[in-house]
C-alpha cells in the first residue's frame, strides 16, 4: 500500500536527482568554451518499483551517473589528422625560408651564372682589355659568394630545425609525464566502472597536444591508455611515462633515442616528424644538389681554362679552387686574383680569343649531372617551389579535414546554450514540482496528525 512517507521519499529523491541534473547543466554552461570539454548528460533512471499485492508502485527517480558525451573514434581520427597537419605546417614554415633563397630571378646563383658568361662574352670582343678581364673575375667572385651564402643559409635553416627537434622532445616529455599521471587515475576509475568524465577530457586534450608533436598510437587497455610512437616505442603505459632522450649525432645534429635506442629515423608526423623530415631529408637533398652544381661547374670552367693560354702565354690555371663533396658550395672560392690569368687565348698570343668559346661552351653544355648549369639551377628553383607548394596544399587539406572532424566532434560533444537553457528550465520545473509534492505531503501529514486532535471522546 502506498504511504505518505513513500511519496515523501520519492519527492526527496526527485529533488536530489534534479539537483544533480542542474549540476551537470551548470557544469556544461561553465565549460562551454573550455577546449576539449565534452558536454555531460545526467543519466536518469526509474527507481526500483515495489510490488504489493496486485499493485506495483513506482520507485521514483534515480540519478544513475553523469556521463560525458564523446566519440573515441573521432578523437583518434582527430589526433591522427593533428599530427599530419602540424607536420605539414612545420615543413611549410621551413620551406618558405628555403624557397626565399631561390626566389629572385634577377639576383642569386641563376643570375650570377649569366653575368659570368656575359662577362666572358664581353671579353671576347676585346680579349686584351684588363677592365673586361677584371669584370670576369668579379662576376666569378660574385657567383662563388652567392654559392657560399646560399649554402650557409640552408645550413642555418637546418640548424634552426635541429634546435626545434630538441625543443619538441622536451615538450613531448612534459606532456607524456602529465598524461601518465592522469592516465593512472582514469585507469583506476575505468576499472571501477566509473565514467572518468572531465579527467578523460583533460587526458584527451593532452593527447591531442602530443599528437601535434609526433605521431601517437593509442591502445585502450584495462589500465587506461597505452601510448606509443608510430613505430611502437612506448611513451605512456598506465601511470608510467617513458621520456625520450636527445643525443649529439653526426654533423652536430641531435638524435632522438628511447631507452638507449636511436629512433630518429622512425619518428614521423607532428612537429617533430616535420622538423626531422626537413632536417634529415629535404635540406640535405638540396644541399647535395647545390654542392654537385658548384663542384661540377667549377670543374668544367677549370677544364676549359686549361685548354687555353693566359696573357703571359702560359697554359691556363684553374679559375676556381678544386672543391667537391659536402660543403662544396660553401667552399667555392676563386683560385686566382690576377685578371691576366684568364685563359682567353687559344694559341698563346694575347690578342686571341679562341679559348673563350671553350669557356662559353660551359654555359650550354650538360654538366655530368645531365643539365646545363642554368638548367640545373632552375630545376632547383622548381623543386623548392614544388616542395613548398605541396606542403601548403597539405596544410590546407589537413586543416580542412581537421576542421571537419572537429565540427563532427563538436556536434556530439559541444555545449549548446539553447539546449542547456531548455534543460535547466525543465529541471527547474521538475525541482519546483517535487518541492511542491514535499509541501503537499507535509500538509497531508499535518492533516493526518490533526485528525486525532480534533476528535473528542464520546460521552
Amino acid at each position, binding site marked *: 500500500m502506498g504511504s505518505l512517507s513513500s511519496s515523501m521519499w520519492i519527492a526527496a529523491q526527485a529533488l536530489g536527482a534534479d539537483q544533480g541534473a542542474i549540476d551537470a547543466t551548470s557544469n556544461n554552461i561553465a565549460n*562551454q*568554451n573550455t577546449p576539449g570539454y565534452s558536454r555531460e548528460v545526467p543519466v536518469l533512471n526509474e527507481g526500483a518499483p515495489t510490488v504489493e499485492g496486485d499493485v506495483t508502485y513506482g520507485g521514483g527517480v534515480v540519478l544513475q551517473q553523469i556521463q560525458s558525451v564523446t566519440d573515441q573514434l573521432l578523437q583518434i581520427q582527430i589526433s591522427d589528422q593533428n599530427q599530419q597537419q602540424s607536420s605539414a605546417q612545420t615543413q611549410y614554415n621551413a620551406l618558405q625560408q628555403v*624557397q*626565399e633563397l*631561390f*626566389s629572385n*630571378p*634577377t639576383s642569386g646563383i*641563376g*643570375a650570377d*651564372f*649569366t*653575368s659570368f*658568361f*656575359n662577362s666572358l*662574352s*664581353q671579353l*671576347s*670582343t676585346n*680579349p*686584351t*682589355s684588363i677592365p673586361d678581364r677584371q669584370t670576369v673575375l668579379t662576376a666569378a667572385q660574385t657567383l662563388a659568394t652567392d654559392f657560399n651564402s646560399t649554402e650557409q643559409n640552408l645550413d642555418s635553416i637546418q640548424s634552426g630545425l635541429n634546435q626545434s627537434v630538441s625543443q619538441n622532445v622536451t615538450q613531448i616529455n612534459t606532456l607524456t609525464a602529465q598524461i601518465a599521471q592522469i592516465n593512472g587515475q582514469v585507469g583506476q576509475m575505468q576499472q571501477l566502472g566509473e565514467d572518468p568524465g572531465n579527467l578523460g577530457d583533460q587526458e584527451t586534450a593532452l593527447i591531442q597536444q602530443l599528437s601535434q608533436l609526433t605521431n601517437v598510437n593509442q591502445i585502450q587497455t584495462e589500465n587506461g591508455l597505452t601510448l606509443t610512437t608510430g613505430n611502437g616505442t612506448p611513451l605512456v603505459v598506465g601511470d608510467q611515462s617513458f621520456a625520450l632522450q636527445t643525443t649529439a649525432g653526426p654533423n652536430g645534429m641531435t638524435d632522438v633515442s628511447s631507452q638507449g635506442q636511436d629512433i630518429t629515423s622512425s619518428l614521423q608526423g607532428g612537429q617533430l616528424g616535420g622538423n626531422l623530415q626537413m632536417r634529415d631529408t629535404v635540406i640535405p637533398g638540396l644541399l647535395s644538389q647545390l654542392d654537385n652544381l658548384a663542384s661540377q661547374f667549377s670543374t668544367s670552367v677549370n677544364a676549359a681554362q686549361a685548354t687555353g693560354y693566359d696573357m703571359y702565354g702560359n697554359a691556363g690555371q684553374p679559375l676556381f679552387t678544386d672543391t667537391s663533396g659536402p660543403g662544396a658550395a660553401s667552399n667555392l672560392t676563386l683560385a686566382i686574383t690576377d685578371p691576366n690569368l684568364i685563359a682567353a687565348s687559344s*694559341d698563346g*698570343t*694575347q*690578342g686571341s*680569343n*679562341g679559348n673563350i*668559346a671553350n669557356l*662559353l661552351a660551359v654555359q650550354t653544355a650538360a654538366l655530368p649531372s645531365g643539365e646545363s648549369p*642554368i*638548367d640545373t*639551377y*632552375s*630545376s632547383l*628553383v*622548381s*623543386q*623548392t*617551389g*614544388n*616542395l*613548398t*607548394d605541396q606542403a*601548403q596544399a597539405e596544410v590546407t587539406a589537413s*586543416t580542412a579535414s581537421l*576542421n571537419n572532424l*572537429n*565540427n*563532427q566532434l*563538436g*556536434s*556530439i560533444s*559541444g*555545449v*549548446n*546554450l*539553447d*539546449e542547456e*537553457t531548455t534543460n535547466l528550465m525543465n529541471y527547474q520545473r521538475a525541482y519546483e514540482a517535487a518541492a511542491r509534492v514535499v509541501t503537499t505531503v507535509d500538509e497531508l501529514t499535518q492533516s493526518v496528525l490533526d485528525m486525532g486532535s480534533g476528535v473528542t471522546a464520546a460521552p
Partner: protein
Amino acid sequence: MRVNPNYTPEILTDLGAIQTQEQTDTEELATGLRVIMPSDDPAAAAADVQNQALQSQTDQYLQNTNNLDGMLQTADSALSSVITALNQAISLGVQGGNSDLTTANQQELAEQVQSIQSQIVQLANTSYQGSYIFGGTATQTAPYTLDATQPDGVDYNGNNGVNSVEIAQGTSIQTNLPGSQVFQGAGGSVMGALQQLVTALQSGNTTSIGTATTQVGTALSYVSQQRVFYDSAVSQLNSNQSYLQQEQVNLQTQETTLVGADIPAVATELSQAQTAQSATLAALAQIIPQSLLNYLK
C-alpha cells in the same frame, strides 16, 4: 540532428583564408607579378630563371654587336684610305712610265711612292681600343715595320690568327683578317707591289715601272675584295642588331606571360574577397548574440 554549437573556429578559418587571398591579391597588384615565390607556380618560376638568363644574354649579344661594329668600321675606313693611297700610287706609276722624265723626276716620284708606302704601313698598323686590328691575334705589337732589306719592303710582326665572337645564340662572326692576308695576299700583295714600284722608279726602267704599276692595280682590286669582308660583317651586325632587339621584345612578352599578374582579374578577385569578408563579418555579428537566453526574463 545535433549541429555543432561552436562554429566560430570554422568561420575564423574561412576568414583567415579570405584575408590570405586579399594579401596575395594586394601583393600581386603592387608588384605586377603573379609569381613572387617559386611555390606560386614552380614551373613558371623555373622557366623565368631561364627567361631572365636569355634576356641578359641577349643584352650582352647586343653589347658585343655594338663593340664589334666600332672595330669593323675602323678597319673598313682604314682599308678605304689604303685604296685611295693605292690609286695615288698608280697615277704616280703612270707618270713615272713617261719616257720624257728625267732621272731626278723619277727619284722624286719614287720618294712620293715611298711616302705612300709608309702611309699604308701606318694604316695597316691601325689600332682600335689598344689592339692592332691587322696583326692577326698578335694584337699588342704593331704588325708592320718598314724594312727596305725585305722583298716586300716591310716586316710582318703579326700572325695568321683570326678571332670570332658570338653575336647571337649559335651565331659567331669572324672579327678580323690578318695583315698577311690583306696586305700581302697571294692574289695581290700591296706591300710587294709598292716596293717593286719604288725599286722600278729608282732604277728608271720604264718597262719595269709599267709592270710594277700594273701589279699595284692588281693589289688594289685584291684589297677591294678584302674590304668586302668588313662591309658584309658590318651589315651582318646591323641585321643581327634588329634581330636581337626583336628577341628582347619576345623574351619580355614571354616573361609577362610566365610571371606577370593579370591585373583586371586580380583586381576583380580582390573586390570579391572584400565583399565575402564583409558579408561574413556582418553575418557573424548577427548570429553570435542569438541564444534562448535573449528571450528569457
